[in-house]
């Protein structure tokens, strides 16, 4: 049922038959540019796109959940401990195990993968958003009240904007680690950059493992850089401060 029906290790290195395999592919050299060229649009690009989709969906759901929980517990501190405890327990479950534990409940579907990936983002996102909201200096809150802002206005105009840096810091960690984790999703569904890695493992095909792995790392670094740019755009006051 899983993409890994039989133990891979038992087979030993088998030279893959890719039809029109070049010398490089047949000899399984370190890196075969021609294989990448031939398989980019058929294998690598779809895997990359799927990987991005899996990550975006997981982080989006995780963010909405964490944001809601943070807003709730920001006012009702009573609920903070249970939320953190839940998120921390989920965070400690090994990814491969969590995927497998969910299979009886949600089957070999995207849902299984997403539930697990969302679960791992909760602790990071929730804690950072809440920390951001809490980090607003008391004198600023007092000034807001003195200016006659209601609680709602204080939240939207003062607390949330000032929580952006901490939130973005959490978002960066969540996105980068979700991209890394999503490779394991291939154990459940044949999607994402983990799938070519699993396939290549069977044949010990170096190029595919290296390229798919490098794509995952590259994707994480690019996403991280994009979020840094987004943070700068969202916090213009920090930008001007840095210049002066």
């Amino acid at each position, binding site marked *: 049922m899983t993409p890994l029906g039989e133990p891979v*290790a038992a087979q030993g290195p088998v030279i893959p038959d890719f039809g029109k395999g070049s010398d490089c592919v047949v000899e399984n050299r370190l890196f075969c540019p021609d294989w990448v060229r031939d398989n980019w649009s058929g294998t690598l690009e779809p895997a990359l796109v799927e990987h991005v989709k899996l990550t975006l969906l997981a982080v989006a759901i995780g963010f909405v959940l964490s944001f809601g929980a943070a807003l709730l517990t920001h006012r009702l501190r009573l609920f903070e401990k249970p939320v953190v405890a839940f998120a921390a327990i989920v965070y400690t479950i090994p990814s491969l195990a969590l995927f497998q534990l969910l299979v009886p409940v949600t089957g070999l579907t995207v849902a299984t993968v997403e539930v697990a990936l969302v679960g791992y983002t909760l602790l990071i996102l929730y804690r950072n958003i809440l920390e951001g909201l809490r980090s607003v200096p008391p004198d600023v809150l007092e000034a807001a009240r003195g200016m006659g802002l209601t609680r709602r206005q204080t939240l939207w105009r003062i607390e949330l904007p000032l929580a952006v840096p901490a939130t973005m810091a959490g978002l960066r*960690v969540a996105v980068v680690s979700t991209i890394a984790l999503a490779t394991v999703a291939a154990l459940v569904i044949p999607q994402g950059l983990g799938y070519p890695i699993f396939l290549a493992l069977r044949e010990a095909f170096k190029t595919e493992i290296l390229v*798919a792995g490098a794509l995952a790392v590259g994707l994480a670094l690019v996403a991280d850089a994009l979020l840094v740019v987004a943070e700068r755009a969202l916090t213009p006051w920090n930008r001007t401060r840095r210049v002066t």
Partner: protein
Amino acid sequence: MIASLTVFGDALEFIVDERRLILHKTWEHLLLSGAALAIALVISLPIGVWLGHRHRGSFLAVNVANLGRALPSLAVIAVGFVFIGVGFWSVAIALVVLAIPPILTNAYVAVDAVQTEAVEAARGMGMTDRQIITRIELPLALPLIFAGIRTATVFVVATATIAAVAGGGGLGDIIVNQAAYGLEGVVGAAICVSVLALVADGAVGLLQRALTPAGLRVESRSFEADVTTSGLRFRPSMSKVDGLPD
């Protein structure tokens, strides 16, 4: 839901019925994780502590942490498998690579953050560098250093599961081999890995308690956890929070 509950029941039954297999695989799992952690500790603790002591290389420490987070464990193990071959050591080395970033970065941050007053006072008392490290910085940095080790421990125990795809043995052998062990075996082994990770985390926590000097034994768990997940990125931005719109 009912169906899934029976699966968990069957899984527990599998653990009991196949306890010899489970124990054997758990032992392999522990050996693999232990070897990887030991090597990672030997490599990264001295480097992290020394860099922190000299207050140098923050660039290196931060980037190692970021890169470590971006490394997909599956890809690292796959690379180890392809270049070193099938078996214990190829996976162990891959796990070492994955365990180094949290340990190194936390050790660096921990020692770097020790109050300069304490270090200066020690120097004023005529302590040597070695004495300052072992008697002042290490005890004070212990909670953070251990936070890194705990992160690495949970991560390595969890990731060692993937070792099975590269012939490294361990409980992952059962998890990836549904054809032989059935769904109850897969779920049973997954439960075992989760428990093992939690137990390992607790064991390292106990070790930390034992090593912490009595005077420093304060509740610091929440503080530790913050640093492991977000500390490095969080801190700079936190200082920015203080900068209010003019």
